[in-house]
């Protein structure tokens, strides 16, 4: 807005300057033209002066000639003046003066006594009206008043009130005193004013101006202007006579510029040349108008042109400014987005980076000459591998490429750079010759992506619990809450021990911590307690997070609820470890338990015993009453065996009619252990010998029991014990069945 206003102001300033210049130009032209007009007026005034001079000269000469003609009359006439004598002389004189209408001789008393025009004779002429009045006796040519008519006989003298009619024939009488034999007479020459008119009108055409002869008293003697009547006076009521001398009068009064007056030197008349201003300057004025018009048009046109140019200039400026700002914006955008421009000319194998490319890597612009090798060197080795291949493949497919790579900054840090490129020139063989593109810093984006991934990963189905080094919970996820029932805010600040069930003993936790500290992680299964008190099983991995110095900062525990999985596992275990018919432990469970029991008894110095029980003549039952009866008997046998032992002891079926009874914790005295074993074996035997209720009725059969004691021997395993018990049982069988025999280590095959 401000820029706009400033620009407006500037345009207005230009506009005003333009108008001033135009006004100045027009003014100058006007002044010049006015000066020229003045000059033209002066020229015309000069011409008028020339006219006035010429005409005054001519009229004066004419008058002079007339005066001389008059003077010739007396010498030519040798006698008393008479009509007869003078007539031919008059005619002779007139021939040489074509401007004279007639010549007459006047006697002061008798009037005209002789004339070239006979009818004039006898006419009385008043001499008073002739000017000037002579000062002395010297003969003088005097000018009368114009007369209307051809000659005195048919004419009247004009007066100011009654001047000569326009178009009427007229003459001007001129008077001069002559002497005939010392008698004074007056010669009157009638001047034909038409003669003057013809002559003067030719010299000064009426369109150009008019000429007037004024007698010295302001009476018009002649005028080429038809409006000025002869005999009329220059003076009027508005313009009264203020001096006797007409020329003085016109000197006092202001006259139009082109009116020129000239006073005759020797005769009483004044010449006035009036130049027709409109005629003299009309053409000039018209020309001036034309020049002004054309000039104004030209100036206006030039002004318009200049204005158009200014507007165009501004528009261009505006466009450039817009372009500049666009470039600036572009640069700012490039900087803001940390985008650098690069070109790669294959023809000269030159890579060019703009400053931003260098800045991306924290380098000074132009820090080095970019090259492919340099780029490779700056690129993370993992990304540099096959990079060129990727680029080539993409270019072949799309004429452009997009790759992301890590590049080393000046601080030896890796930043993610996205490189985009496009082929902008191809060779004739359709090989790319010029590539251009951008480097975009996408490090932050990459990090954000990873964070997002972490966040997503954090919120998985697997429960995650993070503690600090002092085992205080700092974060748990949704899955944790779902499994344990504890919400995050309930957990934060607590230790994971609130989840502890009593399923694991101290030793378990010790071994866990040991592994954790040694290897940095521990993996296993745990029984823990939910918030509602329910015990659940979890498969858990605990990882110790260490800083660069190897100091543990956090622990992360990931675990899954495997309670249901555990139950299934137990079912499977049942199938694997128990005899399906009797639900007694099978050989496998026996073996595992036996191993453990042996180890424990050795460790804790307890004695235990293994009893091998085989039913006597069981085969006969199967043969006579079938397998169902056998199975039923076996089930009852199992039941009787379980009844006869403690909870902590174990009964297993080896298969067929062979059973093992494992007696644990028989005390630390071997003798007592043997005794106890003896008594339990007897009790079992007694139980087994009781009748079995089978489908076909009660059935009786006996059993043989072989026993062996363990607990003092370290080099013994389960299989060996069973073997020993088996041997003892065999001995019992040998000795007539229904017997209890102990294995004798000293005489094993006894």
């Amino acid at each position, binding site marked *: 807005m401000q820029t706009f206003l400033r620009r407006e102001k500037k345009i207005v300033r230009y506009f005003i300057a333009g108008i001033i210049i135009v006004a100045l130009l027009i003014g100058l032209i006007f002044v010049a033209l006015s000066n020229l007009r003045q000059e033209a007026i002066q020229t015309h005034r000069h011409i008028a002066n020339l006219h006035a001079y010429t005409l005054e000269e001519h009229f004066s000469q004419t008058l002079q000639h007339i005066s001389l003609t008059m003077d010739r009359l007396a010498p030519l006439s040798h006698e008393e003046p008479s009509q007869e004598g003078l007539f031919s002389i008059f005619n002779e004189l*007139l021939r040489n003066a*074509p*401007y004279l209408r*007639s010549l007459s001789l006047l006697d002061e008393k008798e009037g005209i006594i002789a004339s070239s025009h006979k009818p004039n004779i006898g006419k009385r002429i008043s001499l008073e009206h002739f000017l000037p009045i002579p000062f002395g006796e010297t003969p003088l040519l005097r000018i009368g008043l114009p007369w209307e008519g*051809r000659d005195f006989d048919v004419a009247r003298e004009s007066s100011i009130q009654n001047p000569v009619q326009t178009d009427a*024939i007229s003459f001007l009488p001129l008077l001069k005193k002559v002497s005939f034999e010392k008698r004074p007479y007056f010669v009157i020459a009638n001047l034909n004013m038409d003669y003057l008119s*013809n002559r003067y009108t030719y010299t000064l055409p009426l369109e150009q101006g008019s000429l007037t002869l004024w007698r010295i008293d302001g009476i018009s003697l002649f005028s080429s202007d038809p409006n000025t009547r002869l005999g009329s006076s220059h003076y009027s009521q508005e313009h009264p006579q203020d001096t006797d001398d007409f020329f003085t009068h016109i000197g006092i009064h202001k006259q139009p510029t082109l009116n020129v007056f000239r006073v005759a030197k020797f005769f009483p008349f004044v010449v006035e040349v009036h130049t027709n201003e409109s005629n003299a300057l009309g053409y000039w004025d018209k020309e001036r108008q034309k020049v002004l018009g054309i000039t104004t048009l030209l100036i206006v046109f030039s002004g318009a042109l200049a204005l158009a140019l200014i507007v165009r200039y501004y528009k261009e400026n505006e466009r450039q400014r817009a372009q500049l700002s666009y470039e600036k914006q572009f640069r700012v955008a490039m900087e803001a987005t940390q985008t650098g421009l690069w070109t790669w000319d294959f023809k000269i194998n030159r890579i060019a980076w703009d400053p931003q490319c260098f800045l991306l890597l924290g380098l000074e612009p132009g820090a080095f000459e970019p090259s492919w090798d340099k780029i490779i060197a700056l690129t993370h080795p993992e990304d540099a591998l096959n990079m060129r291949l990727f680029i080539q493949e993409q270019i072949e497919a799309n004429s452009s490429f997009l790759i992301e790579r890590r590049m080393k900054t000046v601080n030896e840090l890796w930043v993610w750079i996205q490189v985009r490129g496009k082929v902008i020139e191809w060779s004739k063989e359709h090989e790319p010759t010029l590539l251009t593109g951008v480097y975009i810093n996408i490090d932050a984006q990459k990090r954000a992506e990873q964070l997002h991934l972490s966040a997503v990963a954090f919120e998985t189905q697997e429960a995650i619990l993070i503690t600090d080094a002092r085992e205080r919970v700092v974060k748990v996820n949704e899955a944790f809450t779902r499994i344990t029932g504890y919400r995050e805010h309930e957990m934060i600040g607590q230790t994971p021990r609130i989840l502890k069930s009593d399923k694991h003993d101290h030793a378990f936790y010790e071994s866990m911590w040991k592994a954790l500290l040694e290897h940095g992680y521990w993996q296993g299964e745990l029984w823990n307690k939910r918030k509602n008190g329910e015990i659940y099983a979890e498969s858990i991995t605990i990882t110790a997070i260490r800083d660069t110095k190897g100091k543990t900062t956090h622990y992360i525990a990931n675990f899954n609820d495997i309670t249901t999985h555990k139950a299934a596992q137990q079912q499977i275990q049942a199938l694997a470890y128990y005899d399906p018919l009797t639900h007694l432990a099978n050989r496998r469970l026996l073996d595992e338990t036996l191993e453990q029991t042996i180890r424990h008894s050795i460790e804790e110095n307890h004695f235990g015993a293994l009893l091998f029980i085989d039913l006597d003549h069981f085969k006969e039952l199967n043969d006579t009453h079938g397998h169902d009866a056998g199975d039923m008997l076996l089930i009852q046998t199992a039941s009787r065996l379980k009844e006869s032992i403690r909870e902590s002891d174990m009964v297993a079926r080896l298969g067929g009619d062979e059973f093992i009874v494992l007696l644990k914790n028989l005390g630390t005295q071997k003798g007592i252990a043997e005794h106890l074993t003896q008594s339990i074996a007897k009790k079992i035997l007694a139980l087994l010998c009781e009748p079995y209720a089978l489908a076909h009725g009660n059935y009786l059969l006996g059993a043989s029991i072989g026993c062996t004691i363990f607990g003092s021997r370290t080099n013994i395993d389960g299989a060996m014990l069973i073997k020993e018990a088996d041997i003892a049982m065999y001995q019992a069988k040998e000795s007539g069945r229904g017997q209890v025999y102990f294995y004798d280590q000293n005489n094993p095959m006894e």
Partner: protein
Amino acid sequence: MAHLFLILTLITTLSVSLCADVLSTILETRKIRVCIWPEYYSISYVNPRTQELMGIDVDLAKEFAKELGVNLAFKESSFATLIQDITTQKCDMAMFAIGHTPERKERLYLTSPHLASDVYAVTSKSNKRIQTWDDIDQEGVVVAVAKGTYHVALMQKSLQKAQLRVVDSLHAREQEVEAGRADVFMTDYPFGIRMVEEREWAKLIAPTKPFNVVPYGWAMAQNEPAFQGKVEVFIVAIKHDGRLLEAAKRHHLEPIVFPK
């Protein structure tokens, strides 16, 4: 002695005229004498500056002499002395646009006309009273004519209101108008255009309708059939071959070529 000489001369001349016709004389002497009036503008006019003789009849006289194959000699004459100049054999023929008037016809042989001019009036430009032909015959108007011209009789007959002023010479009538003693003077077309061209003040007034058209020819002695025949043939020839019109154009007289 002087008387005797005169008589002798007269007899000789008479005998020549009786014995030999003009044409033969011309051919014999190889010389033709042509009377002209040196002030007849466009007809036979001596240019005052160059003293060169020019005009339509001068050109035609040269043409005629050329045709005859004889030398040409111009003799000065005037309308006042025309008859005398011819009858006294001052010249063989007069070639200055001789108007056909009864008086001349009686005394001379007038050839077939080659020009014909009406009467024109010349007035002063400043004379506002005379603008058209009809302004001439008005009360108070003075009309000047030269003594000896056919205009005298013509104007005496035709003027009703205007006053006629007969002056001594052709030049005088011009001065009458210039001095304002007369308003107009009467003349013919060639003289009229001369006035307009030579005098700044002069203005030509043409008759609104044909006033008195006078045919102009050349004059020669009567009873000279051979010469007359020769001249007539020449006139027919120049009218036919355009020499007349050409000459007329040269001297701005084509408006009065006869017949038109």
